[in-house]
């Protein structure tokens, strides 16, 4: 399940996962630290250029679609009811900037390569496994929940209709979902042990992404920019 990852070889796809992640981190700090109502929107503009250069324009469409409900509520609550359009604009900018940079991250960083990059930097097997296995367990459990509901409905359980009836359906869904998962823990643990999870050896990353001087330079620059902005904001 690669959740929004778009195969490609644009600028962002060739960037080391840590660099893209640092960009996402930097943007999420800068939107709160940079002064001025339009500062976050400046970041949004920069991200749009980056998306265009990296061949990820469709991501901007998704970002806009995701942002729209937030804009609506922000304008309603802050603009209309609290007569403070300025705050609404700043907050909308922050949400849009963060959404855009994160969707670009999801679209250009393949989870498998991120795990390999973490392993190459010495991340413990457990952390890498939890990240990878969770992304695959989520859709598996969702399919199982749907199958459980099917099974219970075929035995007469009514799940549509009044709120009480829908709420009552939670137990015949939740209990088999949990019991089935717990019954599987042993088998999954056996498979992990057998295939060397507890071997104590350092796991070999299968296909670690290349990291160049440019990547490192960019990461240092981002760190400097964020630290500078925070210090400047604290001191002024």
């Amino acid at each position, binding site marked *: 399940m690669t*959740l*929004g990852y778009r195969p490609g070889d644009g600028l962002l796809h060739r960037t080391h996962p840590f660099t893209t992640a640092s960009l*996402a981190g930097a943007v999420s700090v800068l939107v*709160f630290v940079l002064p001025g109502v339009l500062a976050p929107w400046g970041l949004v503009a920069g991200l749009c250029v980056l998306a265009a250069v990296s061949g990820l324009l469709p991501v901007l469409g998704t970002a806009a679609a*995701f942002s729209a409900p*937030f804009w609506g*509520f*922000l304008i*309603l*609550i*802050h603009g209309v*009811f*609290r007569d403070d359009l300025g705050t*609404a604009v700043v*907050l909308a900018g*922050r*949400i849009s900037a*963060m*959404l855009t940079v*994160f969707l670009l991250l*999801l679209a250009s960083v393949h989870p498998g390569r991120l795990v390999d990059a973490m392993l190459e930097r010495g991340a*413990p097997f*457990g952390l890498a*496994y*939890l*990240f990878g*296995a*969770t*992304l695959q*367990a*989520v859709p*598996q*459990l*969702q399919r199982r*929940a749907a199958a459980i*509901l099917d099974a219970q409905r075929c035995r007469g359980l009514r*799940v549509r209709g009044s*709120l009480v009836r*829908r709420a009552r*359906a*939670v*137990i015949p*869904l*939740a*209990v088999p*979902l*949990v*019991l089935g*998962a*717990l*019954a*599987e*823990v*042993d088998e*999954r*643990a*056996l498979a*992990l042990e057998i295939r060397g*999870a*507890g071997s104590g050896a350092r796991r070999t990353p299968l296909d670690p992404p290349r990291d160049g001087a440019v990547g490192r330079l960019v990461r240092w620059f981002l760190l400097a920019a964020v630290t500078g902005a925070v210090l400047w904001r604290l001191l002024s």
Partner: protein
Amino acid sequence: MARLSSRLLALIPLAVGINLALGKFASATSLPLFLDTVGTVLVAALVGPAAAVVTGLVSQTAFTIVDGKLMWMAFLPVQLGIALYAGLAARYRMFASPLRAVASGLGLGVIAATLSWPISLLLFGGVTASGVTLVTTALTAVGVPLRWAVYGASLSSDLLDKAVTFLLVYVVLEALPRRMAVRFPAADRSRGRA
């Protein structure tokens, strides 16, 4: 990070999967609940607070990735609070009876709302998940100051959700067969049987 045993490594992704699967069911059938921390509370009751914290953190990460809205990572402290509280509740046998479960669930509702309140207010101006934000909008419309509108909205949804979540975990723990319960160190204690 302490070397996690294979059983715990196998359990946590499944618990996160349970969080998201029940969360999706609640939103799909438009129940006024999140139901997205059942797995975390269950791990607290079966294994302990530390395992629950890891489950909560991984859960929040998975949530934001699956939704594509990674700014919800800002709510990590709330997951931390839920996991620690649930671990404590389990230690004090709060899953021994439905009444204790609901009471401690309500307690968690207050704590969860209070933890998410500043994050939602200061970082996102009160605009977060659609259900809660509707309440905030309504309260602001009738003139409630933003600060209390956000808190009221968080409290109203978290109280009900966390009480139902604890009740559901009580029901699940009661449904556990002996041979399965004994495989988890904290299970008997949280059910008040050890």
